[in-house]
């Protein structure tokens, strides 16, 4: 039966190739689409952990309620909480941070900026700003020094060595300003960070904001031994028990809605894939229909010689399955090949994403896992093969007498 099916496929190679091509295009499109979404998800996860929330973020339980007022007085004792976290086996690294809005003045020019107070040594496990330095160096502790995003520096015509003044609201409810020397330029992968953010040492941020020893939040990196939401719950419980402090402790995936959407988007793309494959399968359905009408006499002959309806149906189903398998394989291979190239070169979305506040890098590197590639292949073969069931039912219903009219 397999031999017969293969021989029938090769009888009209051009038509078989056309059917396989339709499936291949569908499979390749889906591979590229999923590679882009997976690349985006991986990129967003990396960026969220590095620059925004760590794997787990700890804040005062009241902070979220008043977040729009930037309530810096709702802070945490960095040392006390770090001591508690260091005793937990599942916690690998921690870092205290303060992020606050400020006005940056240089001469008569000013503009609003987001300022991050980082402990650069502890941040090696998170943002690792040294790896994105394009010029200069990181600030030294207890020095009025900062590094700023490349786009921000360019916009204000600032170079390494220039002095700038930062004016911010303090945790005491007053305002304070300090001047800093720009000692480095960084190029964060996210456009909005590059265009509006500057980084100074945590100790200087605490001094500027009257927050000595306090931090706005602590970020945590786990050993990976337990799930992040479960670890977040454990941390909150331990901090409450040992220090009597109620915190809002959550995993990054719980904190970022967009990341959640992106994960859901993957499933939406599987539905889109179904539509793609069904469209591709119409070519197979059409071809099989034509083949059935062309081979009506042959079908009648086989039935007259004793082939039952099931076997006739199986024959055409096998033909569809082989074409689908070949087409899907070619499509998946080409898709994986293109993804491999793009994962090195990247796709530059700088223009398209300018002005969009999203924790996704301006240059995206699509990626695809072996599991996804195999899943798309099997998914494509299954849908296309099942689609051929429609015309094969017609072939099975052909009566011998009716078929012999075509002889």
């Amino acid at each position, binding site marked *: 039966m397999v031999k017969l099916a293969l021989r029938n496929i090769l009888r009209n190679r051009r038509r078989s190739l056309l059917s396989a091509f339709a499936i291949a295009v569908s499979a390749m499109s889906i591979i590229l689409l999923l590679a882009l979404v997976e690349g985006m998800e991986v990129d967003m996860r990396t960026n969220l952990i590095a620059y925004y929330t760590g794997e787990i973020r700890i804040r005062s339980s009241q902070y979220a309620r*008043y977040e729009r007022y930037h309530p810096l007085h709702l802070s945490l004792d960095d040392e006390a909480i770090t001591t508690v976290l260091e005793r937990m086996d599942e916690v690998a690294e921690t870092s205290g941070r303060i992020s606050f809005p400020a006005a940056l003045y240089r001469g008569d020019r000013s503009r609003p900026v987001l300022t991050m107070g980082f402990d650069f040594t502890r941040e090696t496990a998170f943002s690792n700003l040294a790896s994105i330095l394009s010029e200069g160096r990181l600030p030294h502790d207890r020095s009025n020094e900062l590094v700023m995003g490349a786009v921000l520096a360019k916009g204000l015509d600032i170079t390494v060595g220039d002095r700038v003044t930062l*004016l911010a609201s303090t945790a005491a*409810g*007053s*305002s304070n*300003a300090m*001047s800093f020397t720009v000692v480095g330029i960084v190029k964060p992968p996210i456009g909005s960070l590059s265009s509006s953010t500057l980084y100074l040492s945590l100790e200087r941020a605490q001094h500027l904001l009257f927050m000595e020893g306090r931090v706005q939040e602590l970020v945590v990196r786990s050993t990976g031994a337990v799930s992040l939401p479960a670890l977040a719950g454990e941390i909150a419980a331990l901090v409450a028990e040992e220090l009597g402090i109620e915190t809002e402790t959550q995993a990054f995936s719980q904190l970022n809605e967009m990341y959640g959407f992106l994960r859901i988007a993957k499933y939406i793309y599987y539905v889109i894939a179904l539509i793609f494959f069904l469209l591709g399968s119409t070519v197979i359905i059409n071809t099989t229909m034509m083949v059935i009408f062309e081979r009506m006499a042959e079908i009648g002959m086989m039935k007259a010689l004793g082939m039952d309806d099931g076997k006739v149906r199986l024959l055409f189903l096998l033909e569809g399955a082989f074409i689908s398998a070949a087409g899907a394989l070619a499509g998946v291979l080409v898709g994986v090949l293109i993804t491999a190239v793009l994962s090195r070169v990247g796709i530059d979305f700088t223009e398209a994403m300018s002005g969009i506040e999203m924790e996704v890098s301006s240059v995206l590197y699509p990626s695809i896992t072996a599991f996804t590639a195999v899943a798309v292949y099997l998914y494509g073969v299954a849908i296309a093969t099942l689609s051929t069931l429609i015309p094969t039912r017609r072939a099975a219903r052909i009566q011998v007498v009716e078929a012999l009219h075509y002889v």
Partner: protein
Amino acid sequence: MSRKTLFIITLLLFFSCASLWAITAEEIIAAVDANTSFASSHSSGAIITVDRFGEKKSTFEAWSKGDNTSLIEFTSLAERGQKILRTGSSLYLYYPEADQLIRLQGAALRQSVLGSDLSYEDMTRESSTLASYDATLEGEDVIDGIQCWIVKLVAKSRSSAYPIQTLWVDQERFVVRKGLYATAAGRALKEMEVIALMEVGGVAMAKESRIADLLKRGSSTTMRIESIEIDIPLPDALFSLENLSW
């Protein structure tokens, strides 16, 4: 002359005299401005802000010369050494740890002073109210047992921070007891009420007043003058940019 004609003439005379005695809105506002204008002054006081997060007290010392020149230096711990200099329509902020003076202009003037209900713009208001506003007398009212005139001020310029002001002016002392500051559409922005008065140089002025930014829920600021000297000699250099960092 009949008795009827005599009555009408008497009545007309009475009303014309009454109109001669009646005070106009412009005269009320001019008197209020005169009461708050000094050749120079030196004062100290406190700004107490109460908001959803609690109470915060900042203390200050202030010097002024003429109508548009003033210097405020904060003396409380959180703001020690910070200064605000007003010269004409310009406002400069000095911070001890900043190299440069920060000149506030445009939208930055709308920022709150030390997180209070006062904005920097409030500190740059013209002392001649009538130069910026048209005044009309709206009626009379009693505030805390004191008879007041209600004067409505409508800004001549569209760029004014408070296009409409309604002031309750003490009829005896010519001091504003209460003020309501609103947008051109009539939406209330701020409310001010005088809690205590003091006598300075023979005129009454607010010793303690409460200001509420009506756009900030649950927030109010009390401004208290602890001491004030007026018409004292002050060097011009005190108000210069060069001397701001002494």
